[in-house]
């Protein structure tokens, strides 16, 4: 085991050298058990590593090995306190929806089981407007808005696209009401849920478990699971759908809360996905059924894939090109409004180049 005081001293020396000189480095740290001084890289390139050695004047920090860790850009992940305001990145619990609905709730961050790409999870009736096999109401690729249009007074703030949904069946039993949104940028999804922190993976629900949820309308509420085998007829705007394997608690939700995660209050593991309720009860899909249907995972913090960005959206080439185009459009508008000036400019250019 290395001497922690020595390591901290070595770290301090290279911190000032690296962080004040270039944008390639996001931070420094130490690994006491390995005797490493860590350098967190925004750009994981050989050039950045070589430049670090040059700035330090050695390939060691006061005799300690330097370990480079690719971190990407590191941003504050503070969750907003408002459920219905515009916020980026987006947390679980926040208002969202398809253009055909007013508002529901984004449950939280999940990962594709194969690619490990991040997605937002909510209900079919929130993200795909209650699409059934015989009456699809949405198509994959439709924009998804946050906040939902009811909360933005109709102004469209897209944050991603409908990626996948499980159509409901009007004639047989259904197990899930679920859909995924693919964020335009993985950076736009914060793993936290407003007021509840980051879920620590998932587990099977148990009768008697105290659950907690955070949703767009009623905020944070708690309830106890009284049933996890319920088959219920659910009214989706006049279309009756039979849902089975349903978790039931006392009333924990109001309209607009659909899509919220139900967490075991004791360990913050996800057990259900809120989708329906009445004046007396609230209903959740079992989370294992949702994960099977969509082929997704809900991962604890220590196994989440890191989201790495070499540029923030505002630094990106696309943003630069977009800004340039907007500037050109602006100039064009001015030129259009002032044709006399335009004529003089054209004339001057003609003279210059002819």
């Amino acid at each position, binding site marked *: 085991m290395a001497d922690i005081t020595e390591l901290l001293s070595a770290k301090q020396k290279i911190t000032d050298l690296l962080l004040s000189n270039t944008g390639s480095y996001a931070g420094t740290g130490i690994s006491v058990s390995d005797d490493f001084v860590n350098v967190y890289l925004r750009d994981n390139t050989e050039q950045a590593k070589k430049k670090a050695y040059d700035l330090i004047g050695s390939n060691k920090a006061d005799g300690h090995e330097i370990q480079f860790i690719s971190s990407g850009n590191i941003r504050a992940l503070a969750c907003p306190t408002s459920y219905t305001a515009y916020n980026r990145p987006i947390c679980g619990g926040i208002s969202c*929806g398809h253009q055909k*609905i*007013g*508002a*529901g709730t984004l449950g939280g961050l999940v990962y594709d089981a194969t690619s490990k790409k991040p997605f937002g999870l909510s*209900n079919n*009736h*929130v993200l795909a407007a*209650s699409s059934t096999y015989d009456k699809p109401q949405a198509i994959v690729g439709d924009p998804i808005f946050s906040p*939902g249009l*009811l909360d933005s007074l109709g102004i469209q703030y897209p944050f991603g696209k409908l990626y996948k949904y499980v159509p409901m069946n009007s004639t047989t039993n259904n197990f899930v*009401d679920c859909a995924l949104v693919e964020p335009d940028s993985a950076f736009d999804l914060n793993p936290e849920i407003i007021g509840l922190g980051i879920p620590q993976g998932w587990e099977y629900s148990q*009768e*008697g478990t105290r659950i907690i949820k955070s949703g767009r309308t009623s905020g944070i509420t708690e309830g106890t699971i*009284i*049933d*996890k*085998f*319920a*088959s*219920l*007829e*659910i*009214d*989706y*705007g006049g279309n009756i759908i039979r849902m089975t394997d*349903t978790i*039931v608690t006392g009333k924990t*939700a*109001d*309209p*607009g*809360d*659909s*899509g919220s995660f139900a967490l075991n209050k004791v360990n913050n593991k996800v057990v259900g996905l*809120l*989708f*329906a*309720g*009445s*004046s*007396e*009860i*609230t*209903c959740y899909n079992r989370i294992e059924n949702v994960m099977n249907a969509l082929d997704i995972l809900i991962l604890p913090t220590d196994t989440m894939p890191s989201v790495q960005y070499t540029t923030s959206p505002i630094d990106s080439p696309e943003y630069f090109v977009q800004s340039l185009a907007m500037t050109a459009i602006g100039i064009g508008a001015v030129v259009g409004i002032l044709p006399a000036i335009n004529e003089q400019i054209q004339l001057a250019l003609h003279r210059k180049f002819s």
Partner: protein
Amino acid sequence: MAIDILEARQQIESLVSGLSSGVGVSMGSNEIIIYISDSNKEQDIRNRIGDNYQGFGIKYIVSGKVQGLSFQ
């Protein structure tokens, strides 16, 4: 022959089809739950099923109409 509670639940489901909004199970108390959307139908269902079915208790919950909880 004795049946398990999930089997009994299935049977109750078909017995109250069209009258209740759903059926579930409370494993802890060994009861079958019947959800009733309209309190006017409660007595009708009680008369049909009673307080016990195949040795399992029956619990009635007047749930009201159960609906998707988004704003449409």
